[in-house]
């Protein structure tokens, strides 16, 4: 994938990770460039690429427990993302 500056700025999404996922994956937020793939990939495709391009820990993203939000609304992994979107992965919520 092309993660170089200019291209990423043009057609990137922001990926955010929270709580136990953030700790397990060692990252809270990063840009993910869409320019090398389908311009509006599903979350399932983005997730598959993230797992393929990172270490073993990232398989945690595949857990049935993982919740997904696009632009701060909960979706399932068939939802599509496009440039500028915010995609978040997080564990089941435990507030209140």
């Amino acid at each position, binding site marked *: 994938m092309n993660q170089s500056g200019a291209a990423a700025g043009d057609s990137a999404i922001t990926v955010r990770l*929270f709580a136990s996922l953030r700790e397990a994956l060692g990252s809270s937020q990063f840009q993910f460039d869409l320019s090398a793939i389908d311009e509006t990939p599903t979350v399932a495709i983005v997730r598959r690429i993230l797992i393929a391009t990172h270490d073993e820990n990232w398989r945690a993203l595949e857990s049935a427990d993982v919740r997904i939000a696009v632009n701060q609304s909960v979706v399932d992994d068939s939802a599509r993302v496009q440039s500028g979107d915010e995609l978040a992965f997080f564990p089941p*919520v*435990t507030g*209140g």
Partner: protein
Amino acid sequence: MTAQVRVSENDFSVDIENQRLLKLSNGIGAIANFVGVVRDNATENALKSMELEHYPGMTERSIQDVVQRAGQRWSLLGISVIHRIGRLSPGDQIVYVGVASAHRQSAFDGCGFIMDYLKTEAPFWKKETLDSGESYWVSARDDDQHAVQKWQS
């Protein structure tokens, strides 16, 4: 119906928030409140502190969404929700829900509905640290998933 949602590191006063609710509307005869408190769960090893992480922006949005659904379902005169974030100690207040209505049943229903959905939808995560230094993320409770089912019939 007027609703107020706040996510904050600061503690809250139920008295002050209830008085604010009363000013939102005439005809209020009932306020149902829920106050969540940091519970010492540990049996052998006492809880030292709790860290509350959240998803800024989405938390406020998801609580507002729950609050609006409650306001559409029951005849309510005011709703206020405060949820704390950051580091808390055993006994500290975590969450305030205040639901004002003319009569008590809709206030109780609205308050229970908001808590049940907030627990399953609002993006907050609790990490507990014991006196031993051990820390862990709190697991979601199956009970909380079941609790929302009673509002779906």
